[in-house]
């Protein structure tokens, strides 16, 4: 039946499968999507503006609230950008701890994705298994930092505090048991006929188009773009670890799923290497203008004065501008900092991966059915806290 009328439909912002407050304005011919316009900004909190009023150190907790499914990765991106601006070196133990925490966060982010994406398509079992395992990671992160969802573990020059035996035991237990669990997820989804039929050949993006649209992370890699910030611009000792970057061929939603499943395994591999080779030493760079360690503050008057100065007025960063990015759980997460020589970031721009992915949504879903939008959004793995900032 040829459609005579075009329909306008507002998809979201309260639709459960938009994973937040994303609104898409759809133009429909029957059930076919002719035109899609994503409308964002309903979770806009002005984090970039607030960061301009805070000192460099005070702005760290704000970054937790970007991608709250993998909060430590945002912390890492921000502190690395400030460290690059200051030109300081971080002790090896702190770098390894950062790698462990950020890879645990990546797995946490993927857990939320696999649970909710499968739930959107009616596969209810996956979410229970995924969240049970996510709980174990949360306990690991709690043992290290005291926080669960928004730990704020990273500091400029290192990490908040050293880890104890309990944390190492917990991470080792997780690393040993997790590969089996990934196989478990795969038995639920990879050969599931409904999952395959709904994901295969959907929202296809070619190699050239993926680069032109700026897709990074698992979404870009599914289209064959072999770009991983951990490999291209190694940070925080990632060059020490042996891991592979999974790359897809077709660029459809199913390839994105397969890429993320492989990332589960590779992240576990990195954590295993890091926890086994964890070097001894301090976890905070000993630099005069940075926060001195807690034990020193209690015994040394000089350290106490330093602590006061650090909290009250911060430190003055050199004039200049840097861009530093990390491989977030969704894609390239970057921080552009402009400093005018003061103690506050003059301009802090956050480049979030999901933001770019949402802008590419019309290219993905135009021409498909309305129910395919849910699958496409599930495959993109968007978090609105990061998009609207």
């Amino acid at each position, binding site marked *: 039946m040829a459609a005579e009328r075009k329909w*306008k439909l507002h998809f979201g912002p309260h639709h459960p499968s938009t994973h937040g407050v994303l609104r898409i304005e759809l133009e429909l011919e029957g059930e076919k999507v002719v035109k899609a316009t994503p409308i964002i*900004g309903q979770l806009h909190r002005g984090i970039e*503006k607030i960061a*301009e009023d805070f000192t460099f150190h005070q702005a760290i907790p704000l970054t937790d609230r970007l991608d709250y499914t993998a909060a430590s990765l945002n912390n890492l991106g921000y502190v690395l950008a400030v460290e690059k601006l200051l030109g300081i070196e971080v002790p090896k133990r702190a770098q390894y701890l950062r790698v462990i925490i950020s890879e645990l966060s990546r797995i946490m982010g993927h857990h939320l994705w696999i649970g909710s994406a499968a739930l959107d398509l009616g596969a209810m079992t996956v979410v229970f298994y995924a969240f049970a395992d996510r709980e174990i990671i949360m306990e690991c992160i709690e043992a290290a930092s005291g926080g669960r969802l928004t730990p704020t573990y990273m500091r400029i020059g290192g990490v908040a505090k050293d880890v104890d035996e309990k944390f190492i035991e917990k991470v080792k237990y997780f690393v040993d048991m997790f590969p089996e669990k990934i196989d478990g997820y795969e038995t639920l989804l990879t050969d599931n006929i409904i999952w395959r039929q709904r994901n295969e050949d959907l929202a296809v993006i070619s190699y050239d188009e993926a*680069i032109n649209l*700026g897709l990074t992370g698992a979404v870009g890699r599914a289209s064959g773009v072999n770009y991983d910030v951990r490999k291209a611009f190694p940070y925080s000792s990632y060059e020490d670890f042996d891991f592979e970057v999974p790359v897809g061929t077709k660029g459809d939603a199913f390839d994105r799923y397969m890429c993320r499943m492989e990332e589960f395994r590779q992240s576990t591999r990195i954590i295993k290497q890091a926890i086994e080779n964890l070097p001894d030493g301090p976890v905070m760079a000993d630099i005069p203008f940075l926060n001195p360690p807690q034990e020193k503050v209690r015994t040394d008057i000089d350290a106490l004065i330093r602590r006061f100065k650090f909290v009250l007025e911060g430190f003055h960063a050199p004039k200049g501008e840097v861009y530093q990015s990390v491989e977030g759980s969704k894609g390239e997460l970057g921080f*552009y900092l402009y400093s005018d020589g003061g103690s506050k970031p003059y301009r802090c*721009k956050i480049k979030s991966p999901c933001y770019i992915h949402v*802008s590419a949504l019309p290219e993905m879903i135009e021409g498909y059915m309305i129910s395919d939008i849910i699958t496409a959004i599930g495959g993109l793995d968007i978090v609105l806290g990061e998009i609207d900032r």
Partner: protein
Amino acid sequence: MAKAKDIIKLIQKKHKKAIIEAEEFRGDPVVKVKKEKLIEVCEYLIKEKKLAYNLLVDVTAVDFLPYKRTPRFDVVYILVSIDNEHRLILKTEVDEGEKVPSVYHLWKSANFPERETYDMFGIEFEGHPDLRRLLMWPGYEYHPLRKDFPTKGYDFDEKWDPETIKENVIQY
């Protein structure tokens, strides 16, 4: 990974007149070009095989109002070359009320970032297909990331007046 100095030299060789200043900071090249030559330089950055900046990561701006600088804004483009694995911070200067040529036809990923820069700083991009507000709502009068905009906003602690909202509601 090519060195930042080599990248700057390569761009300087071809576009000497377009460059206002070029420096290396913390290992990344920072190049500022004239607004009129922006598209020409961008096309060169994509085509030149030694550079091949095929990924536009972000577009943003910096406001220099407290420094009373003219032109007032810096528009910043962050570029990455996937094949050669190096970055570039490309900048251009623009004053209030002036327009910058859009790079949407070169990199489609400039779509949302350019809209956001327009929304937050009021810098218009010439040639952008759909230049509307992105994060703030349509009809909003201010540009929040400008330095003369208070962090609290102008309507902080004010009573909410439904009449003002009614004017701004979009009719579908």
